């Protein structure tokens, strides 16, 4: 069995940034395992621009952003295996993987970083009634077909879900000559960024119908039409509001799910809200030496934040490899209540945390003129006014080690939304 200091599962933005950071923090024997035929992950198909404003202070396309990190990995001679699928991760950090060249093989790792990303919610998971013809794609599949493989998946299109990929694909299909008739969104607000609604829908006069969903798919061989209807506050279709569209393609952009099958085989505890691992401030899971970052941990809006988080995971994994198990220091629990759906991390170690730890979270609904309040125990520590917060945009609170040091008996931190 071969041995590595660090095995990183996934060669997308999270895996690449984690590898670079671990190497820069003194770890020599690193292996990135990637199942696709190139590094870069989903960024390779995100050919639109808008990436990198935080990281590189310029606007890049997805492949360019990935390219910068791939270059850093290659400059550092970090090893990677492409076309390789990890089959299993054990609790004692043995990684079982396979590919066409090596067959099945096992690697013993001192530390592992989970960076597998996420996948799209499928039609099956959405329970859309109707026939099951060809012509129903997840928005990401259509994106890959158009941008990398050079196929057009259809000509007359309806899109369900207004997540960013759906919006981006509405524009992309339009520019490639398709007619995108409507984007239907179940919720009363869009899950996508405002900028994408304006530049992908408004620019091309594509209507966005909020509080609408698909209630029927027609067509035996190929999609021939779909029916959408308005939904009430209970998100159930309202009879009499049905509208029919003739179309040959339905794209689904209805949310992303962290891909944690491997985490489960290792015995990593998952959050039932994010579907990602529960981690402490070092981004370490309940299994010592197993870290998680990027969309496998929780779904991000901006890749810049993925890189930042992953770089942190790489640094912490390096520390673990060099110094071994962290002292049995105390954990302070972070509670997400009153409009805050979850936080990442969920716990923080006041004695061992970095000087500054970013707590990222999402809100459960749209809030206007509210504040984000942070409590240490019952004491209000910080209150920050926000004009608007929406579930589609990740928020953050920064905790300082120096501040926590003033509260030696602290057991609980609470983050909540309050009136301004």
């Amino acid at each position: 069995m071969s041995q590595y200091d660090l095995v990183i599962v996934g060669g997308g933005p999270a895996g690449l940034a984690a590898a670079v950071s671990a190497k820069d923090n003194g770890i020599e024997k690193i292996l990135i395992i990637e199942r696709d035929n190139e590094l870069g992950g989903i960024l390779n198909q995100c050919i639109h621009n808008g990436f990198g404003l935080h990281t590189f202070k310029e606007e890049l396309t997805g492949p360019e952003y990935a390219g910068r990190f791939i270059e850093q990995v290659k400059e550092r001679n970090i090893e990677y295996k492409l076309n390789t699928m990890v089959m299993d991760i054990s609790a004692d950090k043995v990684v079982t993987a396979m590919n066409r060249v090596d067959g099945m093989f096992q690697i013993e790792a001192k530390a592992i970083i989970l960076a597998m990303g996420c996948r799209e919610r499928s039609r099956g998971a959405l329970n859309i009634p109707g026939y099951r013809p060809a012509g129903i794609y997840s928005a990401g599949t259509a994106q890959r077909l158009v941008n990398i493989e050079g196929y057009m998946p259809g000509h007359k299109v309806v899109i369900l879900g207004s997540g960013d990929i759906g919006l981006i694909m509405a524009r992309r299909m339009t520019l490639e000559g398709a007619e995108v008739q409507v984007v239907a969104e179940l919720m009363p607000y869009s899950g996508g960024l405002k900028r994408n609604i304006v530049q992908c829908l408004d620019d091309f006069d594509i209507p966005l119908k909020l509080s609408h969903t698909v209630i029927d798919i027609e067509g035996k061989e190929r999609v021939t039409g779909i029916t959408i209807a308005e939904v009430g506050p209970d998100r159930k279709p309202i009879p009499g509001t049905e509208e029919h569209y003739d179309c040959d393609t339905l794209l689904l952009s209805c949310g992303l799910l962290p891909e944690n099958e491997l985490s489960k085989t290792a015995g990593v505890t998952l959050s039932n809200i994010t579907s990602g691992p529960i981690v402490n401030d070092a981004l370490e899971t309940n299994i010592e030496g197993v870290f998680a970052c990027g969309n496998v941990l929780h779904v991000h809006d901006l890749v810049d934040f993925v890189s930042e988080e992953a770089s942190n995971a790489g640094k912490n994994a390096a520390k673990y490899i060099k110094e071994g198990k962290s002292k049995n220091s105390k954990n302070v629990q972070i509670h997400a209540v009153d409009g805050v759906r979850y936080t990442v991390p969920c716990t923080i170690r006041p004695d061992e945390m970095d000087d500054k730890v970013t707590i990222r979270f999402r809100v459960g609904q749209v809030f206007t003129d509210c504040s984000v309040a942070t409590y240490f125990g019952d004491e209000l520590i910080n209150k920050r006014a926000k004009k608007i917060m929406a579930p589609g945009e990740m928020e953050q609170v920064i905790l300082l080690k120096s501040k926590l040091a003033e509260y030696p008996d602290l057991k609980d931190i609470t983050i909540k939304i309050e009136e301004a």
Partner: protein
Amino acid sequence: MEERHLTCIGCPMGCQLTVTMENGKVTNVTGNTCKRGDIYARKEVTNPTRIVTSSVRVKGGKIAMVSCKTKEDIPKGKIFDICNALESVEVDAPVEIGDILLRNVCDTGVDIVATKAVGCK
């Protein structure tokens, strides 16, 4: 006097902006709650520009398409012309990031450059 209605893209607020224009000049912006809205509205009604991103076929490459973009902003009205012009473009592998794939697309003075490296098959 002419009125234009826009949604601001500066932040998730998405303020509904109303721009008043006279003889092609902006006389007033309302509906914005911060300065960014004002700046966005003035640019958007007088000189709206976009970066166009697409992909073109690559001959003998590891993958079928290479992604590309306009090197600089182009006038919003030229988006479709540029996409049509790119339809017939085919380049030879290998391609490096930043390689010029098409010069002066649609007489905009802007080149189309590759945004991805594609090696030979």
